[in-house]
């Protein structure tokens, strides 16, 4: 009010020149109150006010007032740096709680300034950075105020930004909801703290705070410890929980173990397992489903040291300690279980059973592809084989191959290699019988093998795929195979297999074996060796990288250089800044292939960090490099850097997707595919749609594959464009004039779209937002298929089942119902395709059998209570083997009615799901546990492995997922749960029998 009365501050400014100090003070205080209005006038007199501030003769208050005034004027002039330095001079007069733009802006500025000083100091390792104490005081005042006002999240954010861990701790401990704040803090530290070392510091602090709590959240602590790579901490927590009398604590320990396994950090898990004490007495053999399996023991041979120890322990305890302390027995039993979980075998086994029992793959799609693809076109032929493998990844269903042996036999040479390797994808996770499955194709020791080297190499690769990241048992065998051969095709397969099986273990012996292969300087084997070395050393940032780099400079073979380039990139996985020197070295190399490796190194070192520096560098290379390969890869690499923020990617690459350069467009498509995989993100689909009809064939290929990756497990009810896309794929496959490249893309896309029997999605982040190392590595190597088609199989590493699997104390799957509070149609399986009219000739043989088959089908359907599960019938009939193809087709046509019948009644707004159930990512938020349920989950998680607390332990348990080992005998459909529930006596660990091997009729 007062300020509006005068028209000019001239009078007051003149007063500043008066000699009497009181007059100056008067002028200053009045100016300070009207500075908002008269700053333009005052700005001309700033030097006078500044001199007042600097005048030592004045009293403190007056000088501070002058400083505040100057600060405000500079603020209005937009000179924030000057403004801040004067505001600091004003010390206590600068009121952080004042609600004005000036204060807000300056506070932000002050915090930024402080944070940048602190982080610079930390980066240059200069702890004693001279920070202006006044600046520090202001930031601290702000922090204290935030804490006082209950704005803990802001306080934590500022504290983290400013590297004030003491304040961070204070904010957390003083907050009203410590658990909530802690989990918020973990989130923040993962998404916003860019420097790895600092993030570790934050997490270490969090662990400390967690441990001080009366009821620590062990799940979160262990996640933190895993990030910090401190297995000892995890071990001590697990031990404490296992020792506890309370059964719930043991359940919690199991849950912790499952959560750790989900992050796929093999080296860490092995470490934890090795630190856990070996159980003193072996409990009854039924408890441990995995490692006590005799077949497995045979497989593993004498390789796995732990197993030997365990076996020793068993025999020893049986003889010497016949009667152990009951609590020790219980402890030992639990220990065995947890070792099983940590080895990943339990979860792999359960996943395998789930994928097998819920397989909904649509063989008709494959059939259509097979028929429309020209026989002589080997690219499309192998693409179909790839597609089949991906579609059935992890389901163990190889019906399609069995039914089409003649057709399959057309695969020769490398096609045969990949056809055999495809079996590995199909049987992925079939740890116990993997080796016996592949036995017919494996190289037989000695000269009498007689098999083609291609199928032998493929089989070794397949073994790697089966045991990917869990290769304890198979490593030795693969090593032996590698050493005993000098056929480069077999070496190739063995290298890849070994790399996969020993992923990230940094095993020196294996490394040396592979290095020997590399030094033979054979192009084919050397390429695989390069990649394999990278796989072995994933994320170790070891010295080996420079050794590899040196060899890459020496060798003449492009293939080897490329393999090594990728391998080097893999070694720096997730190391962020640590990798900068290596990246610099690679990106400045003369050789475009090494620069190309540099792009991958950038992608992997900063994977999922959305680090601005990395993005900037990649964008720079994407537009400035002279080599198309490097540009393509640079764009593609963006997908890896950004997968933690999929919403960002379409925006960032949208311009690149309109580039004149087809390689850049291709890269943009795959970048979107990688980072938005499985999200069904609308922007991503919109960006890819035009690219699927690009003028250049390989861009179409990339776009189709990327689209399939984005749309995996999204059904038409969710996004109508999925239906359009499926029809587009079919059209491309059927079109005789389509280019081979895009045809291949379409075939692969159909495989990815229905991957893993329609029960898996592509996920690069675990539920706790950790990078899934296997998945990221898998996609990175997969993207190499541009040069080498067999690497397509690496995509199977990125598949993770979308299921909620509840487990009881015995790690078995009890029958347990829960609610999905959404329309069933939103998340149901895509409807099976009908027999296309174009290929009506194929249907002919059904004519005779139809009546009987129809009657049979009808009976089946009645039994199935007309539930949507009727679809499983197809699987059953199809697994029945060959010769039944006619009835299968009929079954297909019958099922078309099922959905139609359903349409008559209004769709319910919810759905009861039965453990284990398919829960697609989009569905997760609708999952609820029924209130009067017998089981309560240990942690509330909508998917993955969840341990259940039994509230009524006295009642007999009904188990589901006692999978049907011989599917031919199982009754038609829909009875998986009901019937088999009664047959709970059936051991869970019973595996599907290995199918009889088939031979190539060459």
């Amino acid at each position: 009010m007062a300020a509006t009365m005068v028209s000019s501050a001239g009078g007051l400014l003149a007063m500043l020149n008066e000699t009497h100090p009181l007059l100056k003070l008067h002028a200053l205080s009045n100016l300070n109150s009207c500075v908002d209005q008269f700053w333009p006038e005052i700005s001309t007199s700033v030097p006078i006010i500044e001199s007042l501030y600097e005048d030592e003769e004045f009293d403190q208050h007056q000088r501070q007032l002058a400083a505040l005034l100057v600060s405000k004027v500079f603020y209005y002039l937009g000179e924030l740096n000057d403004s801040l330095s004067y505001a600091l001079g004003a010390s206590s007069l600068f009121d952080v709680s004042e609600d004005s733009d000036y204060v807000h802006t300056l506070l932000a500025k002050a915090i930024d300034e402080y944070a940048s000083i602190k982080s610079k100091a930390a980066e240059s390792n200069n702890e004693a950075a001279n920070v202006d104490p006044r600046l520090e005081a202001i930031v601290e005042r702000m922090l204290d105020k935030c804490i006082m006002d209950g704005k803990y999240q802001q306080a934590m954010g500022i504290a983290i930004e400013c590297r004030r861990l003491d304040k961070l701790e204070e904010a957390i401990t003083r907050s009203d909801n410590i658990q909530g704040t802690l989990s918020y803090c973990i989130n923040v530290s993962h998404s916003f703290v860019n420097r790895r070392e600092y993030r570790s510091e934050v997490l270490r602090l969090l662990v400390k705070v967690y441990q001080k709590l009366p009821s620590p959240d062990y799940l979160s602590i262990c996640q933190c410890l895993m990030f910090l790579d401190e297995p000892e901490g995890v071990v001590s927590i697990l031990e404490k929980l296992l020792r506890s009398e309370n059964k719930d604590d043991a359940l919690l320990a199991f849950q912790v173990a499952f959560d750790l396994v989900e992050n796929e950090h093999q080296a860490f898990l092995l470490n934890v397992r090795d630190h856990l004490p070996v159980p003193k007495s072996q409990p009854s053999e039924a408890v441990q489903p995995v490692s006590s399996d005799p077949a497995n023991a045979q497989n593993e041979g004498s390789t796995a040291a732990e197993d030997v120890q365990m076996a020793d322990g068993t025999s020893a305890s049986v003889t010497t300690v016949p009667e152990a302390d009951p609590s020790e027995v219980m402890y030992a039993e639990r220990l065995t279980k947890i070792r099983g979980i940590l080895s990943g075998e339990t979860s792999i086994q359960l996943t395998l059973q789930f994928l097998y029992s819920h397989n909904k793959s649509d063989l008709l799609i494959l059939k259509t592809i097979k028929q429309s693809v020209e026989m002589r076109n080997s690219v499309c032929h192998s693409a179909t084989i790839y597609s089949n493998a991906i579609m059935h990844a992890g389901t163990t269903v190889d019906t399609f191959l069995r039914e089409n042996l003649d057709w399959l036999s057309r695969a020769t040479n490398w096609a045969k290699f990949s056809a055999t390797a495809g079996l590995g994808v199909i049987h992925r996770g079939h740890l116990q019988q993997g080796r016996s499955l592949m036995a017919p194709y494996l190289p037989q020791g000695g000269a009498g093998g007689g098999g083609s080297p291609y199928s032998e190499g493929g089989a070794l690769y397949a073994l790697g795929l089966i045991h990917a990241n869990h290769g304890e048992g198979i490593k030795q065998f693969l090593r032996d195979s590698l050493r005993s051969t000098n056929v480069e095709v077999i070496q190739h397969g063995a290298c890849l297999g070994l790399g996969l099986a020993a992923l990230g273990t940094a095993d020196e012996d294996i490394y040396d074996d592979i290095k020997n292969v590399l030094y033979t300087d054979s192009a084919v084997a050397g390429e695989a060796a390069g990649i394999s070395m990278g796989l072995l050393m994933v994320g170790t940032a070891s010295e080996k990288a420079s050794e590899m780099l040196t060899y890459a400079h020496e060798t003449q073979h492009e293939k080897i250089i490329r393999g090594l380039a990728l391998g080097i990139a893999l070694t720096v996985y997730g190391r962020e800044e640590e990798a900068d020197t290596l990246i610099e070295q690679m990106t400045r190399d003369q050789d475009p292939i090494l620069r190309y490796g540099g792009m991958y190194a950038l992608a992997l070192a900063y994977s999922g960090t959305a680090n601005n520096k990395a993005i900037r560098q990649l964008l720079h290379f994407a537009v400035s490099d002279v080599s198309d390969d490097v540009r393509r890869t640079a764009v593609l690499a963006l997908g890896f850097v950004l997968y933690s923020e999929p919403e960002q990617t379409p925006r960032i690459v949208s311009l690149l997707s309109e580039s004149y350069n087809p390689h850049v467009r291709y890269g943009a498509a795959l970048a979107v595919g990688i980072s938005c995989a499985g999200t069904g993100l609308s922007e991503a689909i919109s960006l890819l749609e035009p690219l699927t009809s690009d003028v250049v064939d390989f861009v179409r290929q990339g776009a189709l594959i990327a689209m399939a990756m984005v749309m995996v497990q999204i059904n038409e009810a969710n996004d109508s464009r999925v239906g359009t896309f499926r029809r587009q794929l079919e059209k491309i496959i059927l079109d005789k004039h389509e280019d081979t490249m895009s045809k291949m893309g379409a075939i692969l896309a159909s495989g990815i779209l229905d991957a893993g029997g329609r029960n898996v999605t592509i996920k690069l982040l675990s539920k706790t937002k950790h990078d899934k190392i296997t998945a990221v590595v898998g996609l990175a190597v997969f993207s190499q298929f541009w040069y080498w088609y067999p690497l397509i199989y690496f995509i199977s590493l990125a598949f993770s089942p979308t299921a909620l699997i509840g487990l009881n104390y015995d790690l078995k799957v009890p029958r347990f119902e829960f609610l999905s509070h959404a329309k069933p149609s939103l998340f149901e399986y895509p409807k099976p395709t009908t027999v296309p009219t174009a290929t009506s000739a194929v249907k002919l043989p059904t004519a005779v059998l139809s009546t009987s088959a129809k009657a049979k089908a009808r009976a089946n359907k009645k039994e199935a209570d007309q539930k949507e599960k009727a679809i499983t019938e197809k699987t059953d009939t199809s697994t029945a083997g060959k010769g039944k193809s006619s009835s299968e087709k009929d079954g297909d046509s019958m099922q078309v009615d099922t959905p139609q019948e359903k349409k008559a009644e209004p769709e319910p707004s919810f759905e009861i799901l039965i453990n284990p159930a398919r829960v697609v990512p989009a569905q997760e938020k609708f999952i609820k546990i029924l209130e009067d349920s017998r089981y309560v989950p240990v942690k509330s998680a909508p998917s993955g492995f969840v341990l259940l607390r039994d509230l009524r332990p006295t009642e007999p348990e009904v188990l589901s997922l006692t999978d049907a080992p011989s599917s031919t005998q199982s009754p038609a459909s829909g009875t998986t749960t009901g019937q088999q529930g009664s047959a709970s006596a059936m051991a869970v660990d019973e595996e599907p029998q290995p199918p009889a091997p088939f031979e190539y009729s060459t």
Partner: protein
Amino acid sequence: MDPKLTEVSQLFERFKAAITRKDYDTCTQQLSLLKVMLTGFRSLPPLFEETPNSVHELTLARDIFEHAVLLSVKIEDQDAFERDFFQLKPYYTDARNRLPESPNEYMILGLNLLRLLVQNRIAEFHTELELLTSTALENPCIKHAVELEQSFMEGAYNRVLSAKQNVPNETYGYFMDLLAKTVRDEIAGCSEKAYDYLSINDACQMLLFKSDQELLEYSKEEHPEWEVKNGSVFFQKAKDSAPCKEIPSLQLINQTLSYARELERIV
């Protein structure tokens, strides 16, 4: 009456008495004291609070500042003049509708204009002029200043100098004296640009000096860069001191090249 106000008016009376006595030292001290006391009144600018005595206080404050301005002329202190005038100004502008007009207003405004003219601050002179109403412009004091400025701009320096004879108020004398010097500076500035050198005689005539001695002193004090030799004044040196700016050709070439490169890169 408010005791504070009484105190101020008493001190003011003594201050006025001191002015008439021409005891300027006392005046300055008393004035400073007065100003400090004035800060205690909340009715004065910039607060303008409504108090029962506000009109009285405002009038008194205005009187004090008017006297302060006149005093500064008397003690020939231009800085003090400027300071006091700016403090007085709100009473003329912002307090216009609260107070009866002051008899001295135009005289002081005219003085201020003159001061600006003397200090060669023509821009501010015109700003001040724009703030005046058309009736104010008719006032002889203001008119005098305006006419002077016009002559000054036209270069009719003789008219400026002759105007000294008919000042509207005796206080103007001080500034009129100063104005002569301003005129001389102007002429000196123009001569520098116009001539390479001038003979001492011509220079004396041009710069309105009565003797060579005065010219030499002036050039020594104000323009040390002038060179006096061979009976002439050389301005050459002054001209050289302002070299023409170089064209940043290298920088421009670099920039253009980088644009071209960026254009190449556009995806």
